[in-house]
């Protein structure tokens, strides 16, 4: 084989695998940029105050970052990492989700009991939807039909219809619901309850809780098992749940709603993301100030990497 062709192939295959992680550092008011494949910290960029929720647009050209103490969502150019604009998020934005139409962004305003809907093209507020007390998690189904929001003190999942931006149904779940994640076929919704120590499996058409999983780890006090971030594998067979101060990620079989394995990661594990090729799972660990990298196929933690103080949210760019 031609020597140059071989080199070109190697470069090509390497670049197709390489992924860039953007991690918000809540205490450092900064964004850590990490090479996911090699597990190395590339750089740290100062952004707004108390950055938490983070997401990329569909083209992966823009990053949206909830800058909680600035009461705004910053728009950051994903290649230059410069702040290029901001969105009127309302007070204290924490988590948000973008509709598949890449036009509507839903953000929870914890202190005001509202979900604010923002038009990303016009950078203006379309609607503010009153929800329960202390709204937290936001998720949009892949088919775009439902937006859900969890409220931590009301203990409910509010089902918002994006067609008219109003609540159509409410589902009661265990205490202090945090994250919500749809299955990729949009048929099921999974909601973690931090104080309840459980994961609810909700049928999207009936809006009823169909199954519930209570986590229990031998040797770990039950009160420390506080499920937070939820990530569903695209095969819809398995999902991952970050268990907060239990310092573990649970690997859950969706069909049986049982735990296949608990993976020991850093302290107070918070949010999760896959590498684009699904070979790696990344976790942000708030207290140990690092991220853990998990080999998805073998369900083994392969590396931990210090990134800065209070890593919170994570977005992955191909």
């Amino acid at each position, binding site marked *: 084989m031609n020597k140059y062709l071989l080199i070109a192939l190697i470069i090509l295959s390497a670049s197709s695998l390489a992924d860039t992680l953007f991690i918000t550092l809540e205490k450092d008011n900064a964004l850590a940029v990490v090479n996911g494949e090699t597990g190395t910290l590339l750089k740290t960029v100062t952004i707004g105050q108390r950055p938490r929720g983070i997401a990329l647009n569909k083209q992966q050209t823009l990053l949206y970052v909830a800058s909680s103490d600035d009461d705004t969502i910053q728009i950051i150019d994903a290649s230059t990492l410069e702040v290029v604009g901001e969105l009127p998020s309302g007070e204290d934005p924490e988590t948000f989700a973008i509709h598949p139409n890449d036009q509507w962004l839903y953000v929870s305003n*914890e202190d005001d009991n509202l979900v604010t809907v923002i038009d990303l093209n016009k950078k203006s507020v379309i609607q503010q939807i009153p929800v329960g007390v202390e709204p937290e998690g936001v998720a949009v189904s892949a088919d775009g039909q439902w937006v859900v929001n969890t409220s931590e*003190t009301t*203990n*409910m999942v509010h089902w918002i219809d994006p067609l008219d931006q109003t609540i159509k*149904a409410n589902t009661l779940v265990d205490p*202090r619901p945090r994250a919500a994640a749809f299955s990729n076929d949009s048929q099921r919704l999974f909601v973690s309850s931090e104080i*309840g*120590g459980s994961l609810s499996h909700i049928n999207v058409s009936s809006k009823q809780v169909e199954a519930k999983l209570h986590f229990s780890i031998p040797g770990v006090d039950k*009160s420390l098992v506080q499920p937070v971030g939820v990530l569903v594998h695209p095969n819809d067979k398995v999902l991952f749940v970050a268990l907060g101060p239990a310092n573990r990620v649970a690997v859950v079989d969706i069909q049986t709603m049982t735990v296949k394995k608990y993976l020991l990661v850093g302290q107070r594990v918070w949010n999760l993301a896959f590498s684009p090729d699904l070979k790696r799972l990344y976790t942000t660990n708030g207290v140990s100030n690092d991220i853990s990298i998990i080999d998805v196929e073998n369900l083994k933690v392969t590396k931990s990497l210090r990134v800065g103080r209070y890593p919170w949210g994570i977005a992955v760019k191909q």
Partner: protein
Amino acid sequence: MVCSGAVCAQTIDIKLAFLSQAKEKQPALSNLDAVLTDEGIQGARLGVKDNNATGQFTGHRYALRYIEAPATADVAVAFKQLVDEGYRYVLTDLRAATLSPIAQLAIEHKVLLFNVSASDDALRFASCNDSVFHTIPSYAMRADALAQFMLKKRWTKWFLINGSDHEDLAFSKALKRSAKRFGMSLVAEKTWAFQHDARRTAQAEIPVFTQGPEYDVVVVADIKGLFGEYLSMNSWLPRPIVGSQGAVPRAWHRTHERWGAAQMQNRFYKQAGRWMTDVDYAAWLAVRSLGEAVTRGQSIKTDDVRSFMRSDQFSLAGFKGTKLSFRPWSQQLRQPILLATDRSIVSVLPHKEFLHPHTYLDTVGYDRPESQCQK
């Protein structure tokens, strides 16, 4: 009842009362802190607001009535008035001696009471009255929390100073029980009786008063704060002050911001224009407990609410990093205790190293085997 979306076909009203008695004006050390006239009721109001936010989706509407009996009046009259008006859920901000007879009346009238301010242990384990739920931590819980921390610090030799009113003695009794439980030694115990020469200042009086055997820490039981504030920096030996002053074991503190508490502090400050106190927090917990029981138990009958709150199904999120529930033997809300100085949280107790077969939260306060109420 069917609720579709944000609209419910039919709304169920839940009447809730907050019963308080005006307190006799207390002698104060200084006019440093404003006397609160709305303590407790502000917490209840926030709880009602939170319950109604949930209620708009479940079809429950909570209304709160505030009633304050004059300082010298018979509270039973006010209580009976509430019963006649159809109130079945009453938050009480009353002293233990006043609450006891009301609790008896509550059984008769099938009323559920939530004690939000009286910490007396006698209320919880001697009377075995299942018409009262206690959301404020008992003195035993506070004292045990303190003793756990002292044990961890190896501050085992206590110089105990008591005030002389009923509350001081109740707290002091709890402290002595905790000392025994956690192997502390009371090397000295004195009562501050205000018998000093008024011309002598605290700076002159306290060093002499705190002379005695070698001690690690000064433990004080002065609930009203009549002399305890003077102990710091004035003790004969340079020792920390704990108990009712110094590092204080409490239900809530304005510096607490972990586990989402920052949001709670903000919401409360926005509403009340001041920081949340222990009693406000206990009142909020009481209203939220009722809200949880009604939402999940789907009944507003007192019997159903009581049995749900006593059951394992009940759990409440209270910004303390773990779920809160009621001990069925005393109907006391299990909860972590914050050990706080004026401007910081020292620690959150109980520590998990203190093991318990059921829940670590039961390592503070009277546990099931110690209770005479075996239900």
